[in-house]
């Protein structure tokens, strides 16, 4: 079983990625905010945008599990 690759190298791409992210949620992309409900949803999506992993496709592809119960 190839185990050498798992040695953690001290370089931490994950941390760097997070550190580069702006801690404040990005501006909403100029969506119309007609009702308070829409405002709440926009605000929520802005917050989630701010914490979502940056490369969706690669991240989702990398989430591979071995079987369990």
């Amino acid at each position, binding site marked *: *079983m190839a*185990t050498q690759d798992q040695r*953690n190298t001290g370089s931490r791409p994950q941390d760097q990625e997070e550190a580069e992210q702006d801690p404040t949620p990005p501006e909403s992309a100029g*969506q119309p905010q007609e009702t308070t409900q829409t405002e709440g949803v926009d605000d929520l999506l802005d917050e*989630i945008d701010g914490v979502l*992993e940056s490369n969706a496709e690669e991240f989702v592809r990398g989430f591979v599990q071995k079987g*369990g119960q």
Partner: protein
Amino acid sequence: MGTETEYGIIAPGVADANATVLSTQVVNAYAATLREGLGNLTGTRWDYTDEAPLSDARGWQMGRLAADPSQLTDEAPVLSAEQIALVDQGLSDPSEDATVLMNLVLGNGARLYVDHAHPEYSSPEVTSPLDAVRWDRAGDVVVQRAMQRIASTPGFSPVNLYKNNTDSKSVSYGSHENYLVPRAVPFNRIAAALIPFFVSRQVICGAGRVGIGALNQQPGFQLSQRADFFENEVGLETTVRRPIINTRDEPHAVAEKYRRLHVIIGDANLSEVSNYLKLGTTSLVLSLIEQELVPVPEVADPVRELQAVSHDPSLRHLIRLTDGRQVTAVDLQAIYFEAASKAVATQGSTDPQTADILQRWGTLLDVLRGDPMDGARQVDWIAKLKVLQAYRDRDALDWKDPRLALVDLQYADLRPGKGIYYRLAARGAMERLITDDDVVRAVSEPPRDTRAYFRGHCISRFPKEVVGASWDSIIFELPSQRRLQRIQTREPLRGTAELTEELFAGSRTAEEFVSRLQGGPEPSMAP
């Protein structure tokens, strides 16, 4: 009752990381955290003596050779020397002999261990659904602490854990519930009554999933993480050919008196209300079965209907019953709800938690009959779908868009800053039942009203002398005794605070404790 959670695990910075090694890092990181707090090794060997994963509740044993290797959970997993080196470096205390732990029994009575390719937390035994939610959440905090420890240990890449049940490629891993049921209740009656209940209960406790099919063949959204991975109605397996009703007969208790119903069909819940209702309504249905008051609306094709219900977030899918009726999953739930309400009213039960479960169950079923999206503060799949729909509306995404798959995954991310469930909860968008302080207490304290109290306190009080433990035993190694002292705890409702608190308080040493336990004037105190 109790819960078991297998966490999804990745190290995003390490290509091709070995999942067993990562899981072992989690267990050892938590051990290191404990050592810091207690100044002592709390790694405890699991006592496999009473494990019986191949005993079938239908009355037979599966042959060892016929079993899938993953079913042999009565053997400790083994790491190669090379893998041990990967775990041990930096995490174990240099003053201790270098040992890599695959198993810990915790001071709160829980077990944290490496289960094949996942870290698994099995909660201590509790007697109420709310306590089950509390100690289930304590497990999330336990592994969060391990994650933090790994992230701050030089030489280790961060490990992320997810409270979900599939990688949406081909793999599923479980979150199980266990219920203590009188042995006298015939197993086939339990199975018949629970199959329609399990086909339908996902409407209140599904965790939601982007993608349809075990191989994610079809774009879309479904209620359950697990539904597509079930192939059978009744069976012993948990990793292959998964059955709606699992027959593993491993009671971890007085076998003549009890069976442990091992439920493998649930999703791991982050929503406390989903989790509370999952455990509470299932307990109520088991009690109906016990009293022979349970309705049995026989579903014509349970496995197919399980999946059809999961694939229809409108909740309008009609399930065909063998008597010719066609009903929705909410209708099926209502049949059980009405029977439970009637039984509780007839018996004049005054248990406030039972009343609360019934009230919430009935209200939620009404919400689901109206606009299911109104249940977003209570139910995981609805909360998740609401966020996904908002993304679809704002950015015109179709169900194949990887950003939606990422939202699905990150809903269950256990890093509080990253996990979408935690973001929703922090905004007050998820209803909470238990405070954070309460959960932190449950991380170190066992429940007071089951044998978990005895187990947890033995480990906290005598960490040096307790050398092994399992659900139904504690093994002491005492300086004055040549042989190990194995104390059986086969009765889950004994070993409580009420029975053993004084014994703990009055014993200065493990020697004194064991001797009073074995020969004391009060035999009724023994667990």
